[in-house]
């Protein structure tokens, strides 16, 4: 799926960089040489001097690290192209420093067949600026009843299997999926929210929901499903990843599962690391997401869980929605927020606020998802794909949704002040984004 244009044949040298590689734990000055779409060499010896004929990029001391891998991206292709296509999503990704996106099967039709995996791959090959991988449906039509062809789908290239935005309510189906997927080493990525408890609910239960008169759901709806799933992992041995957790109680379940050496990992969306239910304020539908934003205590617990390694992966959970689905009364609006282009900048807020170090932050968006999904990217290493980003950690900018590349504009970070932006994005040795001074500042 990666493009191997002619530019990849020429060597490119990134000099005078601060190399950050969470895979090796390195954070040091140096340089990096790209040739044939791969990382050909790196280290301090390349800090000042480039090989002959190499194109030189002076990093001016800024951070050069692996491009981000975002394993939860919803697009509108196929079926809702007016919201987002693979092309527009990939452009947003490139500008945000995301070099690999994993697209979710919640499309029309649902990605639950080999031909559809193939369709996405071909569309991405022809149109996308970054690497695009498919996460396929684990039940037909995402209905939670019949298992999909997990073996064939995996062979076709599906990186993992999920039930999208919904939890499988039927415990027997969930058990069988975990049991069957184990034979293929397939990863099951599950959204954890009890569908009966969440029915009709539009936000987190609590004082804010009570004041707003909105039906809320207790965060236990998440933990209940997670606890059940961990129990099923225990009896099946299937590889399990909870897609986006949102509360402290769920992290306790994860810690206990990991302590028992179960093949359990989990992710968190950038929204749940940087926003809380109070942001909803007067019914702002751009802050309506799934799972719902929780209390500030839960947000802080998620950041601590990330720093402690309880949480493995950060995702944007990029979910484009248009005016038809968002400019509505809160209870009638759709869930979802776009996030590809603001993922890194929003994550850097946590770093600038002193809530978490740079290394664990970048780790959760590079090497951790790479290992989970079996991708060779996400690391600075000889022979690894040259998926790289150059980041000015300090550069201030203000998010203007009209200037975002995503086709839908439902950003909860609209008008937010950010610090840190991507200067250069490279995918397999090709430059796919370059910051131009004056661009969206």
């Amino acid at each position, binding site marked *: 799926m990666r493009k191997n244009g002619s530019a990849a044949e020429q060597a490119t040298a990134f000099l005078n960089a601060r190399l950050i590689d969470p895979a090796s734990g390195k954070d040091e000055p140096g340089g990096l040489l790209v040739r044939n779409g791969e990382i050909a060499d790196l280290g301090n010896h390349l800090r000042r001097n480039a090989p002959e004929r190499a194109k030189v990029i002076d990093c001016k001391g800024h951070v050069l690290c692996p491009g981000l891998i975002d394993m939860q991206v919803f697009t509108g292709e196929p079926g809702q192209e007016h919201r987002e296509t693979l092309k527009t999503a990939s452009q947003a990704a490139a500008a945000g420093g995301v070099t690999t996106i994993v697209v979710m099967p919640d499309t029309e039709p649902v990605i639950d067949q080999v031909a559809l995996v193939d369709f996405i791959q071909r569309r991405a090959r022809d149109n996308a600026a970054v690497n695009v991988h498919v996460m396929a449906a684990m039940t037909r039509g995402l209905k939670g009843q019949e298992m999909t062809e997990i073996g064939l789908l995996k062979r076709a290239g599906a990186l993992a299997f999920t039930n999208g935005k919904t939890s499988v309510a039927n415990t027997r189906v969930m058990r069988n999926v975990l049991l069957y997927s184990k034979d293929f080493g397939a990863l099951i990525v599950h959204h954890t929210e009890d569908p009966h408890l969440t029915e009709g609910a539009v936000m987190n239960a609590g004082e804010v929901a009570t004041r707003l008169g909105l039906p809320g759901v207790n965060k236990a709806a998440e933990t209940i499903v997670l606890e059940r799933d961990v129990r099923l992992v225990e009896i099946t041995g299937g590889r399990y990843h909870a897609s986006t957790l949102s509360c402290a109680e769920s992290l306790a379940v994860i810690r206990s599962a990991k302590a028992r050496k179960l093949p359990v990992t989990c992710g968190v969306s950038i929204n749940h690391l940087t926003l809380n239910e109070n942001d909803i304020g007067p019914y702002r539908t751009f802050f309506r997401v799934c799972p719902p934003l929780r209390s500030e205590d839960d947000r802080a617990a998620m950041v601590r869980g990330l720093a402690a390694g309880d949480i493995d992966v950060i995702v944007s959970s990029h979910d484009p929605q248009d005016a038809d689905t968002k400019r509505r009364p*809160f209870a009638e609006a759709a869930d979802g927020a776009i996030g590809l282009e603001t993922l890194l900048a929003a994550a850097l807020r946590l770093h600038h606020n002193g809530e978490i170090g740079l290394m664990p932050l970048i780790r959760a968006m590079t090497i951790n998802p790479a290992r989970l999904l079996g991708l060779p990217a996400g690391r600075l290493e000889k022979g690894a794909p040259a998926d790289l980003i150059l980041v000015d950690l300090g550069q201030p900018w203000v998010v203007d949704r009209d200037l975002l590349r995503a086709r839908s504009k439902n950003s909860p970070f609209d008008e937010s002040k950010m610090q840190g932006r991507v200067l250069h994005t490279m995918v397999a040795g090709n430059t796919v984004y370059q910051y131009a001074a004056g661009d969206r500042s």
Partner: protein
Amino acid sequence: MTSSIVQTAFARRHLLTCDGLSAGEIVALLDLADKAAESNRQVIKKRDVLRGRTLINLFFEASTRTQSSFELAGKRLGADVMNMNVSNSSVSKGETLIDTAMTLNAMRPDILVVRHDKAGAVELLAQKVDCSVINAGDGAHQHPTQALLDALTIRRAKGRVAGLTVAICGDILHSRVARSNINLLNTLGARVRVVAPSTLLPPQTERLGAEVFTDMNAGLEDADIVMMLRLQRERMQGSYVPSTREYFHFFGLDHEKLARAKPDALIMHPGPMNRGVEIASTIADHSRSVIRDQVEMGVAVRMAVLEAMARLLPNH
């Protein structure tokens, strides 16, 4: 002069919520409403405060008394009143709330009175139109004129609101009346209790300023005001309460439970009542029931709100 207080005290373009209304604003509106109540008892009830103005009643949810109350209030102040009942099925026709708002806005009304079954919908609409907007009930969020008329009814019967214990009983979870009253009565210095089975209580109601009771006998102990809420039919079958019979047994207002309240306690209900479900029929017609006064004060309070708003409307 009470009217001069109004000019300074209630100066808002919209009335969307009781949350954040100051005691001064509320008292000013109640004073104005007292006068309106007086004029409503005269032979000639009509005044010309809103002459030439257009008031549109935009109801996305069926209502008899609130809509007619606003209609009468508008007409008694001389406004041209139009009623629009937009069944929520028009949403399925494809027109969004905002489209509807923009269409109406183009007709240049001066005041829109809006009811919608979704919380926050009226506020959303208010952001999109140029005229004044009055919230006549949005989902389980707010119904400010109901809380104002309840406060007026209490003040006229008891002479004050501050220091009284008010027990709001019934389906708090789905009730905008409860939320508005909790806000407004707290601001006026009353002690507010809510009484309901746990399935009909929203989480952390105490944070809104209400003492929470799940035992009605305890909740009514020494109450000055017993305010009953309507239990909607769809809540009665199984998922929130097991049956009408059981609900009435534990949470219906009968003579026995009423005896727990103060001997001069007032009985209130925002209507429409389910006799025999949340309130015994004889209680509804009790000498201490002020349920019909509430209806009368409803017109007066709405006139007061309209009059206060009229002073802010642009004059050219």
